[in-house]
């Protein structure tokens, strides 16, 4: 549905007298399949939005190629526009207009006739549970309502792909969960959904496949489960008193199922193992043999943040 090869973009920025060239996107290769929710995960400034804006024909790439829903981005941007929907990050509705007016106008900008546009608007308002507020001005809406109007705008012409830039940023947890349901509904209707996010849980729970972006490059790509599996299995946290920690470390070091072992300063061990579920009984048996008491044992499965940490050397939460 989307295929990109070596997509590049750099910006010139001026600071005082010096002009600096910032490589915002440095050669992105992506393949997005039809009917999936594809997530672009990365910190702010990673180049996610720039890539998205290139794919949505808003900025011209410096290099590379892309085919979107069968249309060539460089050669036929007008055709790409007809086949995609795009929902920008910072909103796209006008305070003084009503949701219905915005939807009708937006449909008509795609060349749809007036009567058809009105029908589509009514249907979209219904689908997004906005009928009640349809004829109120957008400035009176809550953040979640307004975001739903914006998504409805992005798909009013029934595109095959919709790009959502940070669709849940700034929403409260309830509106966020609601928005996830809306996005899943789009996929159920056969649409391909491409979102950017800097939320780990969102990428994990919502996306079928993700690409992790950092510094203008895709550093990892796959399903969330694949990516997590790729990095060194599970972590077993063994809670121990400080006094017995060195003995326990000695006992467990060199066991075949332990890939790596770390001692915590306040006592206790971190064991990196391939599969936590089978390692735990062995750990328990070994410590029992050595006559050491443990306080707790805990299985920690790797998160996408661990994936990000492995690929970039820093945590997404910190950046």
């Amino acid at each position, binding site marked *: 549905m989307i295929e990109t090869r070596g997509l590049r973009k750099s910006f010139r920025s001026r600071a005082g007298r010096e002009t600096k060239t910032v490589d915002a996107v440095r050669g992105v290769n992506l393949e997005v399949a039809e009917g999936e929710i594809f997530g672009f995960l990365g910190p702010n400034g990673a180049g996610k939005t720039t890539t998205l804006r290139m794919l949505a024909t*808003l*900025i*011209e790439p410096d290099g590379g190629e892309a085919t979107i829903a069968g249309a060539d981005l460089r050669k036929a941007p007008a055709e790409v*526009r007809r086949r995609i929907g*795009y929902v920008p990050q910072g*909103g*796209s509705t006008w305070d*003084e207009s009503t949701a219905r007016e915005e939807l009708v*106008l937006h449909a008509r900008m795609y060349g749809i006739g007036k009567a058809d546009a009105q029908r589509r608007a009514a249907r979209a308002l219904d689908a997004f549970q906005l009928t009640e507020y349809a004829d109120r001005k957008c400035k009176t809406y809550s953040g979640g309502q307004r975001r739903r109007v914006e998504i409805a705008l992005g798909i009013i*012409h029934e595109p095959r792909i919709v790009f959502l830039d940070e669709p849940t940023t700034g929403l409260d947890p309830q509106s966020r969960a609601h928005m996830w349901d809306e996005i899943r509904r789009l996929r159920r209707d056969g649409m391909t959904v491409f979102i950017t996010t800097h939320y780990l849980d969102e990428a994990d729970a919502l996306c079928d496949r993700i690409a992790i972006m950092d510094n203008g490059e895709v550093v990892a790509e796959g399903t969330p489960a694949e990516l997590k599996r790729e990095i060194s299995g599970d972590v077993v946290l063994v809670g121990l008193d400080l006094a017995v920690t060195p003995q326990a470390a000695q006992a467990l070091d060199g066991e075949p199922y332990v890939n790596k072992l770390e001692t915590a300063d306040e006592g206790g061990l971190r064991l990196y193992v391939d599969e936590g579920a089978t390692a735990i009984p062995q750990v328990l048996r070994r410590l029992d043999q050595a006559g050491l008491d443990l306080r707790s044992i805990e299985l920690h499965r790797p998160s996408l943040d661990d994936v990000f940490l492995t690929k970039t050397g820093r945590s997404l939460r910190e950046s």
Partner: protein
Amino acid sequence: MKFARDTWLIFQRQTQLLLRNPVWVFVGVFQPVMYLLLFAPLLKPALNAPTQAAAYKIFVPGLLVLLAIFGGLFQGFGLIAELRAGVIERSRVTPISRLALLLGRSLRDVVSLIVQAVIITLLALLFDLRVFIGDLLLAYLMLALIALMTSAVSYGVALKVKSEDALAPLMNTVAQPVLLLSGILLPLTFAPGWLQAIADWNPFSWAVDGTRALFAGDLGSDKVWQGLTITAVLAAAGVVWAARQFARSVR
């Protein structure tokens, strides 16, 4: 055909929003009306005009051109607000004509200017101004072209600078010399030679002369076609330039 439809679509939308808040039409008229009531009475003695009506024939056309220049130049502020709201970006991902995005807005500005011009003209009629309807319509055409040019330029600059803080001083800096060098408040026939020589390079000075000739009923005057031609060419250039700003990336 698509282009005409797209332009009409944007024009309709913008007009609808303007009508929702029609107070701006009257805010725009307020200043010229003040000039008409509080400044124009000084003109008969100052210009040594035989009657009050003769003084108005000189002053009102200049006032209307002033209205057209300023009405247009400050339209960019509204666009910056739309830019910030994401409305422009949303429009740009649709296949709508980029020229229509500009022209629909500028035509709204032209129409609102003509409404204001009609209000001023009607008020001036109360002060014994008399002008032939045919001449008046041509004068309105001139005003429409000026407003089209200044609003298009204002939109183009707004897309380039993207901030009200930059747009306001920029437009004021442009507007002031243009205003002084166009003989709007007093005809440049009173100006010393060097000042007239500079004013000859100001297209708005030609527009003011042409409009004055029309109000004087002097349809055959060279100033009329010269003024119309200059404003038409500049309006076309302004529209083409600004439409290109709409087509280019807007961040």
